[in-house]
């Protein structure tokens, strides 16, 4: 396995909207900028596949990087910061050491999964996940899809799937109609968002949106065949080929934690220049709060400008950021998880999918750490990324501190990197 070393003035981890906007802002200085992302192409989740389409917003942002000293390191996953100023990453054919002067973290968010009976059946997956798979070639035309969980992502995915020929049977949203209405009112203050909301309404016409509804059980043999939803005090069973169920988003804070960035309420805490508590480390996008694409683009630009010392230009964007942050706060309130969701999982429901640990096994312990040591919950390859947010909500547990490697990594990529420095054994 070949090991390489790259140097950047500004290194950006995460090639979604925030990362690309940060690169566009930082590159104008002529400094050497790098974006590292673990997908085959940049774009992150919401812009997945879009960068290849010349008329997309993603492509127009990427175009700003042309002609500047910017390197896109796609297919590369960061797993450690062995010393300040150096990240270690791996791809399928090599390990890489990435040196930086300034670092911008834009590692985005992932869906929150809450366990319920049958959630481990095949074709039960996240809402963003189903969209990602369709973007990656999954045929969906004519397939019956039920969406469940919570968040504006459900609406966006429903519209996308419908546009690709899926039979979207219904959207079962756990928030109440009143919560959504308040959120709708907040959209009035946000010009672009209102336009989006109206076009979404048109795209979604004909698809029932049922509020105050949540999954009771997915049924099937191997793969899901139907889902039972609770609505209005009774149960409804709906046949489906796919159950796309996600409960909003949680930030991917593992690298930020590893580096030592201070978190607040589970998000990376930043100052007005998107600076974290660590010197020379900035943060932008869903990592600071779940606020959507527009906020990510503004935060990314502020972070990029701050990283190159262009504070006055950064200040020019503070007003736009303030406006979009109020949207993020409205999002939070509208889609807060209701208490009934704490009772979705009876004792025999698997919570940790990597190690098949059930809810009943977990409730015998008082903390994440104790549960991990006794049941192996959180010790599997996802490192608690799936079961962690679930146990936080269900049991109020806070997760352990983060240790490297923050993703499972091939042993040869650990060993080689060490052998370059000293001839010590890796324990």
């Amino acid at each position: 396995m070949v090991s390489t070393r790259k140097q950047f003035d500004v290194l950006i981890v995460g090639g979604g909207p925030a990362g690309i906007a940060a690169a566009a802002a930082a590159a104008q200085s002529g400094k050497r900028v790098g974006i590292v992302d673990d997908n085959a192409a940049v774009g992150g989740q919401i812009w997945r596949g879009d960068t290849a389409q010349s008329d997309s917003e993603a492509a127009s942002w990427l175009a700003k990087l042309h002609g500047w000293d910017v390197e896109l390191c796609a297919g590369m996953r960061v797993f450690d910061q062995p010393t300040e100023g150096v990240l270690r990453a791996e791809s399928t054919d090599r390990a890489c050491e990435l040196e930086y002067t300034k670092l911008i973290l834009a590692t985005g968010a992932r869906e929150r999964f809450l366990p319920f009976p049958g959630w481990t059946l095949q074709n039960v997956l996240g809402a963003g996940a189903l969209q990602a798979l369709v973007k990656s070639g999954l045929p969906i035309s004519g397939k019956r899809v039920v969406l469940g969980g919570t968040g504006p992502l459900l609406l966006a995915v429903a519209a996308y799937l419908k546009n690709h020929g899926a039979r979207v049977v219904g959207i079962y949203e756990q928030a109440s109609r009143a919560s959504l209405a308040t959120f709708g009112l907040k959209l009035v203050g946000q010009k672009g968002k209102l336009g989006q909301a109206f076009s979404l309404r048109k795209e979604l016409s004909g698809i029932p949106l049922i509020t105050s509804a949540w999954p009771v059980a997915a049924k099937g043999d191997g793969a899901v065949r139907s889902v039972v939803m609770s609505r209005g005090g009774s149960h409804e069973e709906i046949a489906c080929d796919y159950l796309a169920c996600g409960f909003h988003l949680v930030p991917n804070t593992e690298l930020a934690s590893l580096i030592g960035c201070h978190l607040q309420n589970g998000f990376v805490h930043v100052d007005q220049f998107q600076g974290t508590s660590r010197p020379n480390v900035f943060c932008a996008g869903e990592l600071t709060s779940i606020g959507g694409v527009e906020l990510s683009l503004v935060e990314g630009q502020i972070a990029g400008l701050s990283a190159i010392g262009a504070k006055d230009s950064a200040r020019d964007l503070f007003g736009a950021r303030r406006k979009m942050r109020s949207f993020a706060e409205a999002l939070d309130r509208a889609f807060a998880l209701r208490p009934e969701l704490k009772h979705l999982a009876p004792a025999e429901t698997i919570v940790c999918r990597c190690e098949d640990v059930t809810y009943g096994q977990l409730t015998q312990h008082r903390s994440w750490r104790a549960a991990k040591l006794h049941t192996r919950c959180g010790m599997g390859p996802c490192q608690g990324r799936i079961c962690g947010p679930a146990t936080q909500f269900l049991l109020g547990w806070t997760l352990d501190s983060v240790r490297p490697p923050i993703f499972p990594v091939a042993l040869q990529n650990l060993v080689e990197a060490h052998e370059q420095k000293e001839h010590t054994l890796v324990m």
Partner: protein
Amino acid sequence: MSEQIAVSVNGRPVTVAAGSSVAVAIMAAVASCRTSVSGQPRGPLCGMGICFECRAQIDGAAHQRSCQIACKAGMEIKTDG
């Protein structure tokens, strides 16, 4: 994206649209990606390389996150499910 490419999943030939991920090829073969600790067949959950439910062996390399890898003509994909 109408060009089709041929791969094999557990020895069976599967055709997918060019650019499809390996996870999609596995789903097209109506196979599960892996079998869990307690024997459950599993497929992709997160679609973004975090949950590891989609992991499969690709051209001899084990534990590849199939949802993040594009199919190449002639790829040999093996699942344990």
